[in-house]
């Protein structure tokens, strides 16, 4: 009799917990769509996020902080105040010691000052407002506002411009990182000869405007193994043809040795349609999208 009582009590607790979970709402389904699409005999998983009203925001953790808190612990600490996470993904590449490659500034703190000249043309700026902007470094037209003056910087060719940009980013507590620029203004920016020939799963972040002219952030995951060039070409075709997206930029998200990815449904439950190969605790950098 006692066992039955304990069992029924446990059932009651469990069911009330379940009810609580299912009633929880992490984000509005009107702003985030998770879908699996087959296009030209290839499977794509797409997370489409509308930036309308700036409710969906991005946050980037570039490295561990100076107190030694690793990226995942920093994320957990931040999550206490921002619990409505849509997804988290590994971001840019790391070197042989696990440091982020290319110019990296995390919330105003300089992590890596080396601006890679000829391999990574995308300079990504993640604003505190949750927006993301990418500049094509080869164009030399990085636009920022320094002390009320609009300036166009060429940080590759001018050492003064690079210095001004780094000082601006630190003073504004901006987050900056460098990665491969795959597509810029609907044009493929990598070529098959110089790009990495390794075949693997591919994951991209594309930002552009949909048919209604609204700003859309899309994460596209291609489970079929391909080179960076082939994958970019296929996804450009998919997004412009099937999704009618006017792409401003598309960058690569690392699916190599630090492949981390977690996706959540609107009711906050984990969505297993896309999963990274590594535990998120091993992340060396993290790109997060959340609802506020």
């Amino acid at each position, binding site marked *: 009799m006692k066992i039955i009582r304990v069992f029924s009590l446990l059932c009651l607790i469990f069911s009330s917990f379940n009810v609580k979970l299912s009633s929880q709402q992490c984000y509005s389904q009107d702003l985030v769509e998770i879908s699996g699409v087959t296009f030209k005999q290839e499977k794509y998983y797409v997370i489409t996020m509308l930036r309308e009203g700036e409710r969906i925001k991005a946050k980037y953790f570039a490295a561990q902080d100076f107190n030694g808190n690793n990226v995942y612990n920093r994320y957990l600490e931040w999550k206490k105040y921002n619990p409505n996470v849509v997804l988290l993904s590994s971001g840019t*590449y790391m*070197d*042989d*010691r696990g*440091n*982020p*490659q*290319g110019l990296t500034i995390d919330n105003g703190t*300089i*992590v*890596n*000052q*080396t*601006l*890679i*000249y000829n*391999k990574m043309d995308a300079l990504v700026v993640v604003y505190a407002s949750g927006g993301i902007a990418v500049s094509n470094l080869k164009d030399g037209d990085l636009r920022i506002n320094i002390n009320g003056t609009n300036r166009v910087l060429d940080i590759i060719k*001018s*050492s*003064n411009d*690079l*210095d001004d940009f*780094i000082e601006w980013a630190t003073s504004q507590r901006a987050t900056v990182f460098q990665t491969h620029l795959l597509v810029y203004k609907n044009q493929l920016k990598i070529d098959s000869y110089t790009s990495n020939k*390794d*075949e*693997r799963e591919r994951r991209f972040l594309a930002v552009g405007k949909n048919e209604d002219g609204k700003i859309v952030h899309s994460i596209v995951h291609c489970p079929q*193994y391909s080179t960076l060039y082939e994958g970019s070409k296929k996804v450009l075709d998919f997004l412009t043809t099937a999704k009618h997206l006017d792409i401003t930029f598309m960058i690569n998200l690392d699916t190599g*040795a630090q492949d981390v990815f977690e996706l959540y449904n609107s009711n906050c439950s984990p969505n297993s349609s896309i999963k990274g*190969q*590594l535990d998120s605790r091993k992340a060396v950098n993290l790109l997060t999208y959340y609802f506020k």
Partner: protein
Amino acid sequence: MKLILRYGYIFFFVTILFVIVSLIYKILSTDFEFSILSDKSGHINTGFEIKQYLAPEFKNNITKLFPYNSYIDSADIFNIKNVLKDLDSMDKFTQDSSLNRDLFTSLLTEKLENKIENSLILYNPDSLIYLLQWADGFYHFQKVDSKNERFYRRVNRFWFNLISNKLGQFAETDPSIKYNVKFKYMVELCRARMFYPPIGNSNSEKVLNYFLEGKYSYLFQRLWYGTNIFFKLIILFGIGLCFYSLHCVYKVNFK
């Protein structure tokens, strides 16, 4: 059958010998030379005087008319104290310290790079170390001379950035230089100043790292999905041969 067993036995030892010889060759071919040149700044007196170039007609258009090439060729630019002395003379001449610092930044960064760019094409560790040590001096000066902080920072940032990129390029062209002591010294100096050279691991290094880190499932996945059928067959053949050799050794000695 006996013949096959004997050859299997020999094959096993030849494989072990091959691995050992390869390792020894790798160790011997690594450059352990470590004689870093001493800092020579302050020991050269070129007799150069900037005042001879400061004609009154230059005053209004100094950035255009300044003799950049002559200055780089003649002045002891690798002595920061000399540079500061000239900067002081310029300040007295133009009365515009901001303009002079911008001019000298340009002089010691882009103009100097244009002048020496040919010597930076090939990997020459002594030249790179000399440049890096000189640029590092500006890092220390910026800590104590707040008046010229921006000038020091810009020169330091330019050269560390350039050399960091160059180290990445050299390592990509010849991955074996990553193990050279001088190369490591430069990489560590750059890292200490938060300039991480873009140096990745080669595929074989990655395999070894994943193996040591115990990422066996990831390794298997990469092998299974990321390689072509010929590579898989070669790996299978190698593993088969190893097991066969062990089987032969066991049969000859323990049965």
